[in-house]
């Protein structure tokens, strides 16, 4: 047996078709590895090289990555759920119950969607606390913190709009209360309330509007800002990690270094 699986894979990577898709080419040199990241449309947002201490668990607790994971689960479970859900007053609640009790694997998908939604809100907050208490929001990363705040708001709005869709008592009164909070906006509060619900009460228009926001507008906004968020990590010099040198030692060596420069 001359050829192993690795040999076959190497051969595949050498074919013309493969080379037309992945232009970086074969080999594991530093250049090839960097090109594999840089020339991939999804991965090129990230740095081609990172320091190992940036990837250690204690640096980030992987909270941002976990948040992305829940978001991907929510997209993957949300789209199948859309096949069985009609955003209309007579059908919405019945469809939700059908998903739970009639549709094959519907209960699994719905529960996964719901638990991931809860987890995402928790993880977004945890991620922000971790960033805040590590001081990772400081310059040059201050703008990425702002994008993070926007993503927090988008996450909360996704959570809020999704809450109405089962069209049960909990959903109806939660959105009634929430939309009445919006009408506390000075001067234009009632207009905001009216535009949000597409009427004066939580009804068919509100259900449809929340559905479109939940399934179309807010996910697109989230993806856009997530892309900028990741790209900014590279542009701002990678993930924030403490210097390997202890801070006290670093502080003492600064004046000496400055003196030497003079």
């Amino acid at each position, binding site marked *: 047996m001359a050829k192993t699986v690795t040999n076959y894979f190497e051969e595949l990577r050498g074919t013309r078709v493969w080379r037309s898709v992945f232009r970086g080419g074969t080999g594991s040199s530093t250049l090839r590895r960097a090109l594999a990241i840089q020339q991939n449309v999804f991965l090129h947002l990230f740095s081609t090289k990172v320091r190992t201490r940036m990837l250690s668990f204690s640096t980030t607790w992987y909270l941002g990555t976990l948040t992305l994971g829940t978001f991907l689960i929510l997209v993957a479970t949300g789209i199948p759920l859309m096949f069985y859900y009609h955003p209309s007053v007579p059908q919405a609640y019945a469809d939700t119950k059908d998903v739970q009790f009639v549709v094959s694997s519907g209960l699994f998908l719905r529960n996964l969607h719901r638990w991931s939604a809860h987890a995402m809100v928790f993880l977004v907050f945890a991620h922000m606390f971790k960033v805040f208490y590590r001081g990772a929001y400081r310059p040059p990363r201050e703008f990425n913190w702002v994008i993070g705040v926007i993503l927090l708001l988008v996450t909360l709005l996704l959570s809020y709009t999704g809450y109405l869709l089962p069209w049960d008592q909990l959903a109806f*009164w939660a959105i*009634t209360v929430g939309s*009445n909070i919006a009408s506390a906006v000075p001067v234009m509060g009632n207009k905001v309330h*009216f535009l949000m619900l597409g*009427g*004066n009460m939580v*009804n*068919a228009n509100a259900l449809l509007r929340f559905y479109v926001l939940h399934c179309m507008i807010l996910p697109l906004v989230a993806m856009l800002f997530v892309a900028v968020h990741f790209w900014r990590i590279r542009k701002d010099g990678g993930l924030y990690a403490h210097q390997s040198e202890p801070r006290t030692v670093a502080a003492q060596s600064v004046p000496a270094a400055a003196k030497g420069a003079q």
Partner: protein
Amino acid sequence: MPEEKQIAPQDKEFDRRAFFVKLGLGSLSIAAAGTVAFAYQFLSPNILYEPSPIVNAGKPENYAVNSVTLDVNSGIYLIHAQEGFFALSAICTHLGCMTAWKPELGIIACPCHGSKFKRDGEKIEGPAPKPLPWLQTSISDEGDLMVDRSVTIRPMQFVRV
């Protein structure tokens, strides 16, 4: 002095290029403002398929004296007091939850955030900023009690049959 002649056209504050830039930006601003107005009007429904604000509460005889009747579909209390009939909005003035009549306590209570009201709508306690409003009530030609939920009236205006 050929140099001065070359500089002179640049010193002009308003040349053709600046004019077209201003024209273009001005047109874009007007178009943007138009888009905002367009979007606002598009998103405001012109017809609402919401229930009529006028509710037929039925014959007055159906309501015993000193009774408080909640209609959950229309969100109103029809109350037959000693002085006469009156209708009260059942929508909490705090954040719009449906309140409930507690006969054992003789009060109206909101399940959401704990606001409590007297039978005439006056607030006892809780976060509600205003009392429950009295709604315009009248007797139709057929002798039915009619409540207009869109018109609030000053309290203590009873309807006598």
